[in-house]
């Protein structure tokens, strides 16, 4: 039993609008899994189904070994959820929010309070502990939200767009917190619209578009699946460049900056082959760069559209 989340054939419609059209997911324990997709792709709907909030129209789900339909309380006891929208009690202080969670997790008075203080420290909320959550900044609310999710030591954590709307510094803090979670052995399923976020955090990425998974794999695997990867070699002079271009007949020479562009998928094997061929000729490039396509290229190639938000839009 190594799967933290296993879903097959998930379907969901609202009225006649099909929102999820047969989704399969497999998330191994102790990994970070990113569900990547633009607004309206069905990310939140997927998370709401996996976390027992709504019922799917069809499909089977197992979370932490519990069947979702047969044992929703078993699933609930094993998971922690931080939704897309803040789920803190604005009329309680940060500490009271955490103690509320501790009480609902039946930790007992002393243990609950200790756990609350531990999390306040860990999420840098010590100073704001006695202030009403309603007065917190966006970044602080997100941290409190995540801290509340962790009170019960969940094995599987769901984070729906954990960094949307955060400033760059809070984003990096959040990324660090998410990475720390997995180091502690839990499994994380997060959703994101941001390619760099999936790239940075996830072991596995599933690209969701209009209710269908259009691709799945590690960031590297996804990038290799699309054209546009190449290796750039820079040579000392035009003579060397010319000779190299002659040997590597599929390459394109760019005389102006003395570089040669060799198409390739960016894998280690492709790189080794290339270097072997160069070695055989005795040519020594001055500089070597591997260019792998980024996830923007991936998304474009997979969906034929470029409507994911770009770096500038946040």
């Amino acid at each position: 039993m190594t799967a933290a989340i296993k879903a097959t054939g998930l379907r969901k419609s609202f009225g006649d609008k099909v929102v999820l059209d047969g989704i399969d997911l497999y998330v191994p324990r102790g990994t970070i899994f990113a569900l990547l997709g633009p607004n309206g792709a069905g990310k939140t709907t997927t998370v709401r189904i996996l976390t027992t909030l709504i019922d799917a129209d069809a499909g089977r789900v197992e979370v932490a070994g519990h069947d979702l339909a047969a044992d929703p309380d078993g699933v609930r006891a094993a998971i922690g959820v931080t939704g897309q929208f803040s789920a803190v009690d604005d009329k309680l202080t940060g500490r009271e929010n955490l103690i509320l969670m501790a009480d609902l997790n039946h930790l007992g008075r002393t243990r609950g309070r200790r756990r609350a203080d531990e999390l306040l420290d860990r999420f840098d909320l010590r100073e704001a502990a006695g202030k009403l959550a309603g007065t917190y900044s966006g970044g602080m609310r997100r941290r409190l939200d995540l801290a509340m999710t962790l009170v019960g030591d969940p094995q599987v954590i769901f984070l729906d767009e954990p960094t949307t709307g955060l400033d760059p510094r809070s984003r990096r803090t959040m990324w660090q917190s998410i990475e720390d979670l997995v180091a502690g052995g839990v499994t994380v399923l997060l959703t994101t619209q941001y390619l760099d976020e999936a790239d940075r955090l996830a072991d596995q990425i599933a690209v969701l578009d209009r209710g269908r998974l259009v691709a799945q794999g590690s960031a590297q695997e996804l990038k290799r699946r699309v054209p546009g990867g190449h290796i750039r070699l820079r040579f000392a002079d035009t003579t060397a460049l010319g000779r190299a271009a002659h040997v590597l007949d599929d390459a394109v020479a760019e005389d102006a900056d003395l570089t040669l562009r060799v198409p390739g998928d960016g894998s280690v094997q492709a790189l080794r082959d290339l270097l072997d061929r160069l070695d055989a000729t005795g040519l020594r490039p001055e500089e070597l760069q591997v260019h792998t396509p980024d996830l923007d290229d991936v998304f474009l190639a997979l969906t034929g559209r470029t409507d994911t938000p770009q770096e500038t839009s946040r």
Partner: protein
Amino acid sequence: MSTLSYAASDSATMLRRNLRHAIRYPSLTLSVAGMPLIFLLLFVYVFGGAMGAGIGGLGGGRTQYLSYITPGIVLMTLASGSITTSVAVCVDMTGGIIDRFRTMAISRASLLTGHVIGSVITTMFSTALVLGVAVALGFRPDAGPLEWVAAAGVLTMVTFALTWLSVAFGVFAKSPESASNLPLPLSLLPMMGSGFVPTGSMPSGLRWFAEYQPFTPMIETLRGLLTGTAIGHSAAVSAAWSAGIALVGYAWAKTRFNRARTH
């Protein structure tokens, strides 16, 4: 721990949360007393002289009318507490925190139970406040200890029933605004019963309504306990109404609460 004791401890946790809100924002509990107090002052000082004289057999006078109207004002306070309950439940149901509660392995009913018990407690506070003001104005109930205990019991019973109904309103309402409007008619019902004038003085259509609506027997029971007027069947009828309202409210709230799962 067994499922049942989890349910009890989760409800207690939710209750603590609601009481903390109430203590942190006492203006809510006070505002529940606001409208009934305005009616009390208005009716006693503006109309009290004439009304007291007009109500047969009371011997007339402002003090006499104060003593007649106080039970109705108290019932009005209970009904006005429903608005706060309904809004608080709706704010929880439409906010983000409900999703957090729903994804936790906690007793499902605890959120609603916590609201019900919390509201009964805060409404009792508002009621005590209103009664205190009435006493300060000259209301002199002649109830003995036993009657006071019985009065408290009747008030708790009625509040419990109204609270379940307003919890249902809160779960049903799509926004806190509509949640505050739904229970509004409840707080006007005591006026259209025997709260302000005896039903015998009303035109026949209204009189029929006034005599058969739930607040009239409740007011009559309380009036009997506090001022010694005849209670008759009123106590039994009040208990039946309360049980009915509580059951309808409970069933409605529960179905609605569980139904919210499909979308």
